[in-house]
């Protein structure tokens, strides 16, 4: 009950809705009530934890091996005196995954600034190039090494999928980076990139939510951030309260979903074997 404003708003919405309901709820699609209820509860859960984190409450996040490996990889590159290659996917900024990739890039850039390792970021969209440059510049400023930043570390290759993949391959073979990171939205080129990275013996760390490409990354890379892990990565690395709160909120929603599955299964089992209870499936079906 720490967040008074939050509870106040929730209570007022409930009261207003109850009044509306008692007035005969004109224009309301009654059979979708379950859906409205879930949307409101789930959004409220999310919002509650984001606000809690912003107020300064701290949440624990379990370690993710692939994210630890990022720092190791940067360290190894420094030892070997070779650059780090970072590929933020082949899609534009309108994809959530690209945004997450650029955010992670900022953190990698901080590490390379700290370790004084060179960073190479080929991109395939001009908007992504602008965003990635800003994010790197910012990182080098924060680390107090603006002298090490140069704009060409983020450079545009081409929009075309396969031509881009070929361009990145060329960079890999010429510069032999010690670590390759693929974080963003990938399509068929994932396999071409990971194969070449593998053949030059680089440490490879991938992160994507593209379901069809994950298997190729898992088999060809050393570490892979799968789906939601990748989205959580920016919260881990940035330690920004609102992002961590969001992860916590989503976790809570997941718990709700799991409990609903378990409870519904129990109700169904009891209902079908003994006839006691009700058919919950009916309530979960929304036309």
């Amino acid at each position, binding site marked *: 009950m720490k967040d008074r404003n939050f509870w106040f708003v929730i209570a007022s919405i409930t009261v207003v809705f109850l009044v509306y309901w008692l007035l005969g709820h004109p224009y309301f*699609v009654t059979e979708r009530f379950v859906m409205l209820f879930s949307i409101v509860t*789930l959004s409220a859960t*999310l919002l509650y934890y*984001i606000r809690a984190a912003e107020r300064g409450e701290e949440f624990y996040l379990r370690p993710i091996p692939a994210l630890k490996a990022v720092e190791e990889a940067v360290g190894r590159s420094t030892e070997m005196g070779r650059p780090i290659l970072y590929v933020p996917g082949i899609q534009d900024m309108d994809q959530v995954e690209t945004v997450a990739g650029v955010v992670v890039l900022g953190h990698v850039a901080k590490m390379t600034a700290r370790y004084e390792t060179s960073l190479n970021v080929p991109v395939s969209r001009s908007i992504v190039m602008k965003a990635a440059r800003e994010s790197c510049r910012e990182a080098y400023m924060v680390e107090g090494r603006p002298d090490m930043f140069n704009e060409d570390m983020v450079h545009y290759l081409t929009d075309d999928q396969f031509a881009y993949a070929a361009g990145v391959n060329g960079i890999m073979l010429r510069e032999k980076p010690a670590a390759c990171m693929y974080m963003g939205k990938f399509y068929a080129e994932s396999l071409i990139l990971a194969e070449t990275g*593998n053949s030059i013996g680089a440490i490879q760390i991938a992160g994507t939510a593209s*379901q069809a490409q994950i*298997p190729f990354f*898992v*088999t*060809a890379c050393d570490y892979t951030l799968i789906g939601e892990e990748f989205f959580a990565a920016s919260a881990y690395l940035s330690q920004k309260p609102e992002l961590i709160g969001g992860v916590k909120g989503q976790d809570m929603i997941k718990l709700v979903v799991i409990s609903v599955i378990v409870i519904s299964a129990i109700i169904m089992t009891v209902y079908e074997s003994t006839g006691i209870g009700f058919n919950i499936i009916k309530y979960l079906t929304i036309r």
Partner: protein
Amino acid sequence: MFWKRQIPIFIVTLIGSITLFGWFIDQPNVKEFVGDDATQWFDVLASFAIILGALNLIKLQLQKVLYQKPGWQYSIIAVFGFIFAIIAGFFVKGVDDSVAQWGAHVTSDGTLFKWMFDYVFSPMSATMFSLLAFFVASASYRAFRIRNFEATLLLVSGIIIMVGRVPIGGIISSWFIMYLIILCLGIYVNSLKQDMKITFVFVAVGISLVTIGGVITGWPIDQPGIFYLPSIQEWIYFYPNVAGARAIMIGIGLGIFATSIRYILGIERSYIGE
């Protein structure tokens, strides 16, 4: 600032709330907007985005030609291709009005547009994708490694699906698979105990057990089912696979839901470059 920042955020919140809560409102205008117009508007915008993309591309290629950058000769080909497609799309129909009017020409037989589709666009888009068959082959050779237990599980389930789903999987006897498993276990036992004798005894006993089983039952190709590739494949595909796919599906659903809510509430504003 107002036009560039506040208005877009307002548009997102407004349209987002209408399309989200419109599902619960039983009013003809709202229903029509949510059910039809909202998507149609999106499609109209998407078409404009395609035009924008095409103009951008041509701008880039023309610049290349004008400044004679490396590879500018190829850019001429690109521009030529574009102009050809535009001519087929807007200027030369290739058939009479009675066969296909303007507008129907993009989906009718015998037009120049259809010719371009059949003999230029189709083969090239299909070939671009089929190139990947070669890359899959070379990656399977050089990159798909059994680095840990997870990758092993992935590759084994992938291989079972790959072989079990095609006709050749059906002619591989379950007894052959059993022998194969015995041999693989033999290798595992060997690496565990580092003793040739134990390995030999293990493999010998295993092979004779399988052989005895085979002789007794008369070597039926698809029995026992748990060693017959098409049956294992079907099981993996229908049960463990669905369980995993469903977990991912729910995860993606929740992720998209959470992100959408953040957009609508204006918490996330990355789309306008913040």
